[in-house]
């Protein structure tokens, strides 16, 4: 059964918007996705019917809100096939999740002279937290290099592993290039050396079925807002054994068992990592987003997107002077490119006037840009509501752009 794209588009109110009098063509999905009306409605309903602070509340609203909150935890557990609800921590977003792990894991496991392996194609959110850790604890950051087409160099990775390696942290999909990283191989190799692996799945979860048990990863991070859910909510999955061993990240309400001034004891998982009033409305919206994706079926989403992606790559390749950055074969949902002789900012400005929203710049992945010796790219990134016709519009606009610049 195929996806009915016309019906899907009707679910997303913003897609009916006009920009400078032209229909919006939204190709900035790697930055954030648009929300279906089901998600928007779930948030409104939450605030209009159930809003309450959760846990420990004796009254009706609090019971209802708590139940909805904990049900969503279970739905997310199923969505990524984690073993136990306790392993699902609600955070503010992928960046928050990554910082929590970097900070808390380091306190238990990283000491002077230890090494952390990341790759060259990481988002800043999976680089800077580890730089903090290295600085604070005297550890060393080791970088897996890329080959010239923007893929992880697996041989080099194997050579980086040594008996000081404490963790490997890599993206599942590169936000700058769209490259799919062979995380399963990476996890297997690392586990052979008994080294835990964190996967930054922010750009993977929206586009493919992710199964953390099948992958075998020890930590997995992502953001709701990149998968049709609300802003301000994200997930940290961690294997129970690790989450038990590492200290809590923030202190406050919800995460404690007892508090005296001399000593406090921490709550059980997952609450130990959820200090403060949680974003219950965000969780309600997130549930609606997961329901939406489950309804469509992730396999179907992936199939549709991959046919659209292939169509887009072929169409763009035909444009004279257009260079795709990162020409690996296993890629998804992101096309980064440059127009010969035209600055990426000029390209973005003109596309914007055509109603086409793309992102330009370094995409929070400066090291990737450095590798290709470029200051930035134009990035078109796709979601489940994009169409072949929108790809055609992008191509037409780029051809017009070339005319305007006399190229």
């Amino acid at each position, binding site marked *: 059964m195929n996806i009915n794209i016309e019906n899907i588009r009707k679910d997303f109110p913003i897609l009916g918007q006009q920009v400078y009098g032209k229909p919006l063509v939204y190709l900035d999905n790697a930055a954030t996705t648009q929300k279906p009306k089901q998600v928007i409605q779930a948030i409104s309903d939450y605030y209009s019917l159930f809003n309450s602070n*959760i*846990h*420990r*509340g*004796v009254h*009706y609203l609090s*019971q209802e809100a*708590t*139940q909805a909150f*904990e049900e969503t935890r279970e739905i997310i557990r199923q969505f990524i096939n984690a073993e136990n609800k306790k392993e699902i921590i609600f955070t503010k977003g992928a960046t928050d999740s990554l910082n929590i792990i970097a900070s808390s894991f380091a306190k238990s496991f990283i000491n002077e002279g230890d090494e952390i392996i990341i790759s060259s194609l990481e988002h800043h959110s999976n680089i800077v937290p580890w730089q903090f850790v290295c600085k604070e604890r005297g550890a060393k950051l080791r970088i897996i290099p890329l080959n010239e087409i923007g893929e992880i160099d697996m041989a080099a990775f194997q050579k980086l592993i040594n008996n000081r390696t404490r963790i490997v942290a890599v993206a599942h999909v590169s936000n700058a290039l769209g490259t799919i990283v062979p995380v399963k191989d990476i996890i297997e190799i690392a586990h052979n050396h008994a080294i835990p692996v964190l996967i930054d799945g922010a750009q993977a979860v929206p586009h493919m079925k992710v199964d953390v048990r099948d992958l075998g990863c020890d930590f997995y991070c992502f953001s709701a807002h990149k998968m049709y859910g609300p802003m301000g909510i994200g997930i940290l999955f961690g294997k129970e054994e690790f989450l038990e061993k590492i200290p809590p990240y923030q202190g406050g309400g919800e995460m404690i068992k007892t508090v005296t001034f001399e000593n406090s004891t921490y709550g059980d998982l997952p609450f130990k990592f959820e200090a403060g009033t949680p974003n219950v409305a965000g969780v309600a919206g997130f549930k609606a987003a997961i329901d939406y994706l489950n309804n469509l079926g992730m396999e179907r989403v992936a199939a549709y997107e991959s046919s659209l992606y292939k169509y887009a790559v072929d169409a763009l390749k035909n444009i004279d002077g257009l260079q795709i950055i990162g020409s690996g074969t296993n890629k998804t949902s992101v096309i980064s490119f440059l127009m010969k002789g035209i600055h990426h900012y000029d390209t973005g400005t003109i596309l914007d006037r055509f109603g086409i929203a793309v992102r330009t710049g370094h995409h929070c992945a400066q090291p990737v840009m450095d590798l290709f010796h470029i200051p930035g790219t134009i990035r078109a990134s796709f979601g489940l509501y994009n169409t072949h016709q929108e790809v055609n519009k992008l191509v037409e606009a780029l051809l017009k752009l070339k005319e305007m610049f006399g190229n």
Partner: protein
Amino acid sequence: MTIAETQNKIITEFQYFDDWMDKYNYLIELGMSLPVMDDKFKIKSNLISGCQSRVWLHASYKDGKIRFEADGDAVITKGIISMLIRVFSGQTPDDIINASLDFIDQIGLKEHLSPTRSNGLVSMTKQLKLYALAFKTKNE
């Protein structure tokens, strides 16, 4: 009387109450008349965790049957647990493990069934069944 029979009896009793306040008055009465537990059983290992008020549950085993005793700080909670004891005390581990607990819903105290309620029936029931399981395992 079997577990199912006691549950049915309680359901019938509750049918006489017209409104929630009468039901709660009855719960309060039950709670207040729950026999006081010996202090030696009011120990940490008998505390049911996750409750806003303290609830102790103690179980003993004799002649293939389990006897439950309980106490607590909050009267309504005690009232509920007194019904549970009435249903389960004196039953065999197997019967306890296999019992369903639909009478709570049927007597109109559904709000106490919420797994998130701090003094949840759910955690009390779980604890009762855990005791049954423990005795069963020990005696097999």
